[in-house]
């Protein structure tokens, strides 16, 4: 199931609607990378509220999304990590190293606006 990507001015918002397969996650990474270029986006928000786990594969892919976006001039904020998902990540020592996080979409947008050059 593809993840819808919306455009809010110069920010792309990918809101994950349900648990994703590995293939769906890779598709999201590729779609975002393409759209960052096409729309000259300065920010990317990945809303993971509906994502059930951030396991090793998902964490790696989300980091990949953020690094790719950064190389193309956009900053990424991951929003909506659920408490149980966060617990598991902490237990694993998994981090979204270098990727900004925020509680929800509004805070994510505020973060991007505040830090905009």
């Amino acid at each position, binding site marked *: 199931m593809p993840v819808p990507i919306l455009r809010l001015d110069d920010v792309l918002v990918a809101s994950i609607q349900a*648990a*994703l397969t590995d293939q769906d996650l890779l598709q999201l990474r590729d779609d975002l990378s393409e759209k960052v270029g096409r729309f000259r986006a300065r920010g990317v928000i990945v809303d993971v509220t509906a994502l*059930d*786990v951030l*396991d090793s594969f998902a964490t790696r892919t989300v980091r990949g999304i953020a690094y790719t976006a950064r190389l193309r001039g956009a900053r990424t904020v991951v929003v909506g990590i659920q408490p149980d*998902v*966060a*617990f598991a990540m902490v237990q694993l020592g*998994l981090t979204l190293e270098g990727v900004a996080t925020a509680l929800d979409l509004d805070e994510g947008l505020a973060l991007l606006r505040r830090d905009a050059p």
Partner: protein
Amino acid sequence: MTGRLSEPLRVRLPVSEELDVVLARTCGRELALQQGFREAATGAIATAISEVARNIIVHAGTGEIVLEVVEGRGRRELVVLARDRGPGIPDLHRAMEDGYSTAGGLGLGLSSARRLMDEFGVVSTVGKGTMVTMKKWAA
């Protein structure tokens, strides 16, 4: 906490494609919630199932996940079995280490699953297959 189990709960889930990984971990989470596991535990269970189910797809092709709820030593346990008849793991010791992967992965799957669960074991025979057994105790 729900009452005593009248009979053991057991669910068998075939794993042969990526969607099965999602189904298995969703089922594990639901079962854990229904059995009164805490939020921190349900996330751990779902994540660990995701890792071992993905290993079946990536390294063995097909297999199955069996979820079971048992009463043991005065507490309730959720038991996850992941088994396949794939190629097996030649060097289990190394496979359990962080960063060891024969498939270009991060090599974090097995070690993560071990950290997330209360008990963890792997039995593997080259040419025959692999069985991972892991348990989480209801606090």
